[in-house]
């Protein structure tokens, strides 16, 4: 009798909680929302009419062969490239949603340097090779006004530890580092400002498999721990499976398939996705 009365109460309480969460999530809406993004190089389409939504904490993988428009799309989403047409909305920490392409240059710089991160395939594109690893990581803090050396140093140390860098190398130039170490520094440099959204272009490209594995472990841990939303471009389906919740398959600038990662990789519907999945070497 007692149990019978308690159970529905408990159940209804949970249901209420779920409903409240759902309402909160719906209120918050997507973190990033792109609509009809197209960009052309002459007559050739880099990406054509791509729309997507990304919620906070969600990792979206974009896969496809070379030249399929992955990087063009990523650059458009990261506001590094102004597409020929399309809209991009982003929800700020204040809850206000802004039109990213409509922001002034100063606002856009501030956004991309604090709330966003961008990890390049080649660390040379994302690091200052002539200044030390520590200064590279601290740059974002100084760019937004940090003026206390000791505090900056502490945060840099913290982040280099989190990306498993040897702290003895903190004041060395990145040009003296291996590719895997450079990539770690680049990741720390992006995460030091505690962004909510990170764009990655082939973050493990060009690294040997054991280094790749450790880096992927690190990335997965960081996205989980920090609740980071991420858009990851890769041609490596294993990387996509490991990191992303959802997957978009691109071909010739168009999205040919879009769904949960496991669903797309285990049961591809589009002919091109099937080809892509079946092309992976089975070992």
């Amino acid at each position, binding site marked *: 009798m007692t149990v019978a009365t308690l159970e529905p109460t408990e159940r209804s309480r949970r249901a209420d909680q779920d409903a409240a969460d759902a309402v909160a999530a719906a209120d918050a809406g997507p973190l990033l929302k792109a609509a009809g993004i197209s960009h052309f190089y002459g007559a050739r389409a880099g990406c054509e009419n791509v729309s997507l939504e990304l919620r906070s904490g969600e990792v979206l993988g974009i896969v496809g062969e070379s030249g399929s428009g992955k990087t063009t799309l990523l650059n458009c989403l990261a506001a590094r490239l102004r597409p020929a047409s399309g809209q991009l909305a982003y929800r700020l920490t204040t809850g206000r949603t802004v039109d990213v392409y409509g922001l002034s*240059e*100063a606002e856009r*710089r501030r956004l991309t340097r604090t709330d966003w991160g961008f990890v390049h395939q080649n660390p040379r594109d994302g690091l*200052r090779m002539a*200044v*030390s690893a*520590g*200064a590279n990581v*601290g*740059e974002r803090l*100084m*760019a*937004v*006004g940090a*003026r*206390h*050396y*000791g505090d*900056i*140093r502490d945060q840099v140390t913290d982040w280099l530890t989190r990306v498993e860098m040897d702290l003895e190398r*903190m*004041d060395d130039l990145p040009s003296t580092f291996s590719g895997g170490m450079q990539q770690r520094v680049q990741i720390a440099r992006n995460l030091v400002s505690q962004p909510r959204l990170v764009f990655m272009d082939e973050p493990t490209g060009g690294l040997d498999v054991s280094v790749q594995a450790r880096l992927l472990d690190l990335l997965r841990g960081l996205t989980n721990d920090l609740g980071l939303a991420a858009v990851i471009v890769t041609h490596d389906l294993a990387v996509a499976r490991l990191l992303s919740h959802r997957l978009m398959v691109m071909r010739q600038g168009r999205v040919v398939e879009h769904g949960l990662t496991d669903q797309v990789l285990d049961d591809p519907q589009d002919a091109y996705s099937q080809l892509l999945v079946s092309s992976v070497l089975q070992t």
Partner: protein
Amino acid sequence: MNAIENTNHGGNGGHGGNGAGGHGGYNFAYLDEQSKRMIRRAILKAVAIPGYQVPFGSREMPLPYGWGTGGIQVTASIIGRDDVLKVIDQGADDTTNAVSIRKFFVRTAGIATTEETGQATIIQTRHRIPEQSLLPGQILVYQVPIPEPLRWLEARETETRKMHGLADYGIMHVKLYEDIAKYGHIETSYDYPVRVNGRYLTAPSPIPKFDNPKMNDMPALQLFGAGREKRIYAIPPHTRVESLDFDDHPFEVQTWSEVCALCGADDTYLDEVIMDDRGTSMFVCSDTAHCAERRAAGHRGPDGDAAPTGLVP
């Protein structure tokens, strides 16, 4: 030494109308009037926007880039017949560069020159600010090799101009961070970046950071000319000039345990002069006019009596 050199070298000096004068058929102060007017317009704009680098059509001058072509063009376009010119190079009035530039203006403009800081109306300088405080109405003209303080961090001019436009200067601290990480303190000792009027990040030209505090709230007008880079910028009188630093590593100037060997000054910028090939050296004021003035007033340093008056041995 003579405080004021002979003002009338050559027959034409001091004669003629507005454009004429000088020597050997040159226009007054070498540059043609149109060029001077163009440079004055750039200077006016520079004064109106303190610290902002104004592009200008830098002219060919009869000496190579890097020898002060920017400073000379600025001086040439502001100098008048009544002006008294002082030229210093690393603080000294008697080095080749300073002597040549002074003679250049004596020949082409027939103006008076001086070595006394207080007597000059225009002081053209390379790498120093005189020790003696400048006065209202004086103009300090700097020769600038690289006017862009961000160049060390960003090679693209398009990008640095954008950074200035957006006052996006955080990365300048990266350079200071590097110094502290490497040496434990801010090692940058010359061309130490400043923020002018709370807005533009500006290169003070390669003056020692010892001189940076003198730029703040200076009663004199400060003009900067970079001939090769084709830029003019300015700091109007009584403008706020701050040297960048960190809260826990505040800006500091150089200090010496020695005093000037000649005049005994303990508050000036000292040069270390090597005396022989066994490593003997002496410390002397880099501002020769200031040092001579102090000695004339009876001040003596440890080697003050040994040295002849005037030149450093």
